[in-house]
């Protein structure tokens, strides 16, 4: 009985936490505008008249993108720290943090998204080979 009551109280707390969170969503303005989210949700067959759930989806997307961006920022900073260790002169030049495809693909791979780009493009199959072997 006691255990049941405790679990019931726990559930009430969780319920209230969830409902409080959903209520707080109405005050919080996510970066992704509601109209954009509504458009893509309607395109995918999501039907819900409740604005709070649309805000929930917007906040979840924002969190995901922010996580990916912060992971790629870690990669970028790690790369810059490795370079700065060798050459102290270029410290001023590499101060800017730029979002690149390399960092992004590394961080997205952990989230299960495969974004791979070509390392380089070659003019013909024999580009870069030795001249002797190319003649053959």
């Amino acid at each position, binding site marked *: 009985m006691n255990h049941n009551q405790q679990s019931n109280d*726990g*559930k009430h707390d*969780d*319920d209230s*936490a*969830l409902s409080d*969170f*959903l209520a*707080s*969503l109405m005050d*919080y*303005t996510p*970066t*992704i*505008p509601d*109209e*954009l*989210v509504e*458009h*893509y*949700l309607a*395109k*995918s*067959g*999501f*039907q*819900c*008249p409740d604005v709070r*759930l649309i805000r*929930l*989806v*917007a*906040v*979840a*997307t*924002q*969190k*995901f*993108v*922010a996580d*990916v*961006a*912060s992971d790629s*920022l870690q990669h970028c900073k790690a790369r810059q720290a490795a370079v700065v260790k060798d050459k102290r002169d270029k410290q001023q030049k590499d101060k*800017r*943090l*730029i*979002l*690149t*495809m390399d*960092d*992004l693909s590394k961080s*997205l791979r*952990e*989230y*299960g*998204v495969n*974004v791979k*780009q070509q390392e380089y*493009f070659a003019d013909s199959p024999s580009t870069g080979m030795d001249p002797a072997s190319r003649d053959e």
Partner: protein
Amino acid sequence: MSGVKTTGGKGEDGPSSSLERAKADDFGRSISKIVVAQICESVGYQGYKESALEALADISIWYPCDLAKNASFHANLAGRTECNVFDITRALEDLGDSHGFPGASETGNCLVDSCIVKGITQFVDTKEEIPFAQPVPKFPVVRNEKLVPSFKHMNEAPPGKHIPSWLPAFPDPHTYNHTPMWTERASNPCADKIEQARRQIKAERALLRLQQRFVLVVCTILPKEAIISDSIIFLLIGDSVHACYWKSMLIMRGEKVWHWLSETCALLSYMSVGFLFHLGFTVFFTLATVESLVSMIAIGY
């Protein structure tokens, strides 16, 4: 936040990108690009590469779409058409499985205390609010379509018992009935008449100019009597044009013109005949001129 155009990516071709046609989702995609740029700036980035931003914008579109599909799937599974918070929580857990979240391995735990929702709650509490840069209108814009009125609307009886009256009405018979065509004539009679008159005028003008040349040559040496006699001859035969020419020649020379001669000339000019008549009397006129010259020599000028 400033953008850096890539050399290997899509960013450098300015003129060719302006030739691309606008796609249906361009508006949503451009808003997503701004959103992602704002999020990256809040995370700490100072610049971005165009290709990387576009890839992240694609993901920011794909993620809520996938979430929505998953949530609606769970709702349909439960026998509902509208989604609720638990459908979304299940969808979030499905998407988060690849990355892992606390409580993923436990089965049968309540969705209310799902760790993913707790993570989102924490994100909302800690992260500061970054509203979107510009106001976004409601899209896509719905246009009221003009529908074809039904049989009932048009108060028509459908031609056939198998057609219900609430269906759109058939088009009017004049839109599909075959009617005889107006035969187009190759020639234009008005234009032909105008062309004929123009040619006639041209020929007459050329003839008159020729006559004037003759007259100018002759009138400087011919005596007045010869001119008057010739003009009388012309009057008698009815060639008003040549009579008028003689008259004008006399006027040019400054000689007194008989009143009755000028009057008759004016009257007969209204009764002038055709081109061939004039041609015939050009010959006669030439002959008359020759005769006058002969007479002049004979008289002894």
